[in-house]
C-alpha cells in the first residue's frame, strides 16, 4: 500500500472532480434554458400598470405623514439604550 502514487491519485481526483462540476453545471444550464422557455411562455410576469398620474398634493401629504411616522419610529427605537 505504501507504493500508492499520490500525485497520480490526485490527477484522478481532478478528472473526477472537474467532470462532476461540469456535468452539474451543464445540466444546470440546460435546465435554466428550459425553465426560461416554459416560464416566459406560460407564466409571464404581469406588468403592474403603475398609476403614475395621481393628485400630487394628496401624495405629498401622505409622504409627509409617512416621514413623520418614520421619524417617530426611529425615536422610539433609539430612546431606550442600555
Amino acid at each position, binding site marked *: 500500500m505504501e507504493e500508492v502514487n*499520490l*500525485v497520480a*491519485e*490526485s*490527477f484522478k*481526483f*481532478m478528472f*473526477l*472532480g*472537474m467532470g*462532476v*462540476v*461540469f*456535468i*452539474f*453545471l*451543464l*445540466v*444546470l*444550464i440546460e*435546465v*435554466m*434554458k428550459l*425553465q*426560461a422557455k416554459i*416560464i*416566459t411562455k406560460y*407564466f*409571464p*410576469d404581469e406588468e403592474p400598470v403603475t398609476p403614475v398620474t395621481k393628485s400630487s398634493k394628496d401624495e405629498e401629504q401622505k409622504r409627509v405623514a409617512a416621514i413623520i411616522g418614520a421619524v417617530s419610529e426611529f425615536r422610539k427605537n433609539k430612546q431606550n439604550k442600555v
Partner: protein
Amino acid sequence: MKLKQLLLSLLFIFTIAISSAHASSGHDAPVIEEGKQEYQSKTLSELASSFWATTGINAILDTDDGEMTSEPAGPSAERPMTWFESSLGRIIMIIIVFILFYLAIAKNFEPLLLIPIAFGGLLANIPLAHMGGEHGMLGVIYNMGIANEFFPLLIFMGVGAMTDFGPLLANPKTAILGGAAQFGIFGSLIGAVAIGFDLQDASAISIIGGADGPTSIFIANRLAPDMLGAIAVAAYSYMALVPVIQPPIMRALTTKEERRIKMGVLRKVNKLEKLVFPIVILMLSMLILPESTPLIGAFAFGNFAKESGVVDRLSDTMQNSLINIVTIFLGLGVGSKLAADKFLVVETMGIMIIGLLAFSAGTAVGVLMARLMNKFSDKDNQINPLIGAAGVSAVPMSARVVSKVGSEERPGNVLLMHAMGPNVAGVIGSAVAAGVLLSIFK
C-alpha cells in the same frame, strides 16, 4: 421622593431579614461547601510571589512551566506546550494578528471576517487564560457552531438571501466559466500532494481555490480540523487580495482586442424563474451529489426565502441580525485556531503557497475557458474573456475587479452584471467540488 426610594429599599431588606430568620431555622445541617479548597494563610510576600506566577510576563519568560494547549474538545485533547509555542511563538502570532488588523482596517481587506478572526487569534494567544479551551469563551463558541459546522451554514444561508441569480439566469452559458475556475481547486490539490501533503489534507487545502469562506471552513472542519485556522485565514486573505492577484493574470492571458469586447444588455428575468431556481439547484445537487446539499441547501433556503417575497422579515433577518451575530461568533471561533501551537506549524507555510496557487490557477483557467467558448460561438455572441476570472467566486469582489479592468480598457464598458453570472455560478461550482471531495473521503 428620594426618601421614598430609601424606604422602599429598606422594606426590601427588611422582608429579606424576616425571611432569613425563618430560613436559618429551616436547615440546621452544616453546609458542606464543595469545590472549595481549604485556604492556607500566606504572608504578603508569598501572596505577591504567587501572584507573580500567574502573570503573563512570567508565563512568557518561563518557557518550562508545563502550560497545556487549549482545546475545545477538552482536557483529553490537550498536550504540554513546547518552549517555542509558549513564548516566542505567541509573540510571532501577535505580530501576525497586528498585520491582519492593519490589512483589515487600513487596506479594507475583508474586515468583516478578518477583524473577528484576528481578534480571536489575539485572545487565543494569551497565556494561562485558556480562552480557546473547553470552558473558555472561544472554546464555547467553537463547540457551539464550528465543531458541528452550524455557523458556516448559517453564513451561507445569509449569503443566499443576499444573492441575485438574475444575471446567471439571463445568460446561462456563463455558468461554464464558474465551472472552469474550479480548476483552482483541483489543480492546487495536485500541487499540495506534490509538496508532500497527504490526499485528505491536500483536499482540505485546495478548497481555498473555491474562493468562498464558509465552504472552506465547512470542508476544513470535516477533512482537516487541525488546519482550520490557516485555511480560513488563507481563504479570506486571498479573497481580499483578489484586486492584486487577478488583474495581471487576466491581462497576460488575453489580447487587448478581447478585453475590449462589448456584451449586450441582459434580458429581464422573470420573477418566477428566480423563485424556482434555488429549488432547481437543490434538486440537482440532491440527485447528483447529496454530499453538497448541506451547503447548497442552506444557500438555496436563503435565496428561496428572499425570492418568495412573502417572508421578508425572515430574509431580512438572515441578511442582517442573524448573519452579523454568526459572523462575530464564526470569526472568534476560527480565530481560536490561530493559537501559536496550532498555526505556527510547517503546514501553514504550504497552505499559504498552495492557496495563492489555487487563486491564480482558477483565474487563469476561467479566462482561458472564456476564450475557448468564443471559438465556438458566432460573431455576435462573443463574451468578454475577462468575465471568466469572476468564476472563482469571491463574490462580489472578483466581479468588481473584472468590471474595473474592463472599463480601463474601454471606458464605459460596464461588465459588472455580466461578471455576476460566472461569479454566482462559481459559488455553486465550489460547493459541488466540495461535495465531490467529501464523497471521496466519506
